[in-house]
């Protein structure tokens, strides 16, 4: 069993679907932060069988919870202070996401208009479907 030490201040993202941690690492732009990051892949999990975990030693406010919720709202976010879990953040699908994914419809105005943000609106919460604000092209939630 591999042991990764405790962090003093930061957050632990638990219950990440096995194999998704690197994608989350990139989407949260953790590569741009100057802090300690532990990526644990394929950890044993009673609930999931296998899971990934991310431990990040930095201020919780640097984390974009909307991005995380869009990627997978089942991830548990543990906020750590003085080496202890002080809070667990609930993730809910964001109503709107901005510049996380790009509209793939070649007929969409986002393909030509300068500096137009790529905005997707949650159109079906049950099926986790987002649609481009401009052309209504469907986008599945999973990245």
């Amino acid at each position: 069993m591999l042991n990764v030490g405790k962090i003093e201040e930061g957050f632990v993202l638990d219950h990440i679907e096995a194999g998704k941690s690197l994608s989350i690492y990139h989407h949260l732009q953790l590569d741009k932060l100057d802090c300690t990051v532990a990526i644990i892949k394929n950890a044993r999990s009673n609930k999931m069988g296998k899971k990934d975990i991310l431990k990040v030693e930095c201020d919780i406010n640097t984390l974009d919870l909307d991005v995380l919720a869009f990627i997978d709202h089942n991830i548990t976010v543990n906020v750590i202070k003085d080496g202890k879990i002080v809070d667990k953040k609930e993730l809910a699908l964001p109503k709107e996401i901005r510049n996380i994914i790009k509209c793939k419809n070649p007929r969409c105005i986002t393909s030509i208009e300068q500096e137009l943000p790529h905005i997707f609106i949650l159109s079906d919460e049950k099926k986790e479907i987002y649609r481009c604000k401009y052309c209504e092209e469907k986008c599945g939630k999973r990245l």
Partner: protein
Amino acid sequence: MLLFDFVTIRKESIIMRHLMSPLDFTVEELDQLFDLANDIENNMPKYAKMCEGKKLATCFYEPSTRTRLSFEAAMLNLGGSVIGFSDAASSSASKGESVSDTIRVISCFADICAMRHHKEGAPMVAAEKSSIPVINAGDGGHQHPTQTLTDLLTIRSLKGSLGNFTIGLCGDLKFGRTVHSLINALVRYPNVHFIFISPQELRVPDYITEMLREKNISYEEVIRLEEIMPRLDFLYMTRVQRERFFNEEDYVRLKDFYILNKEKMALAKQDMLVLHPLPRVNEISVEVDDDPRAAYFKQVQYGVYVRMALILTLLEYAKPTTPQE
């Protein structure tokens, strides 16, 4: 009974309204809009100077005769004037100007703008940056709300109400934006039964049939037009549009799949009405034009009335009021 209170001075509105989709208006607001359109139909001279001194900008980045001329006729009928361009090549888009910049400039010249663009969502981008009301006059394969308003007004005017009928939609149900918009608008009315008539390749998209199932709205999908003709109250014909195909071979193969002719019309009810967003190519034989059930040219006239009503409403010359006893 007239439901509108006309004001001669444009009032400052807290929220300026645009029209991007037919669903932007509630059913009640649409009723008021259609009441106004019918009043215009019956009392045209009353409206002849309503928009005097006002300018409509028709910004058409994509060729269109019918829709552009309908908008222009609507504004001229109201006593206003028209400026604009009729293809992207004669606009600053050819120099690379963004839609956002164009509408900011147009806002300085005109009081209201009707925009057609080949890119889906372009009128919405314009509406976000505009200081004047923007009407989506068609954005690619996405929306064409004023066509839908035209279709609804035609149905309501010729049948007396919206609801309690069977409508067959025939032709290109996959790419046809007018069909998608019309279905989305009609599901808000009671007891509308849809029959989709198309070749396998041009079936109505899954998201529409899913939506109908979720709302418990009855529909059928068939390939042969003849078999369902006797059951229809409306037949909405559409053109297979060359510009929506990436592949010329597919277009050629499918373009003549349905042709409505006298023989097929003989199978229909005596009061069934044929609608078509036009332009027609050869999906409706010319011999059908003289049939009293052919309503597609009346539909064009209703298009002008509804655009007049829309311009008045968005410019706030027509303010919906509570009906008096």
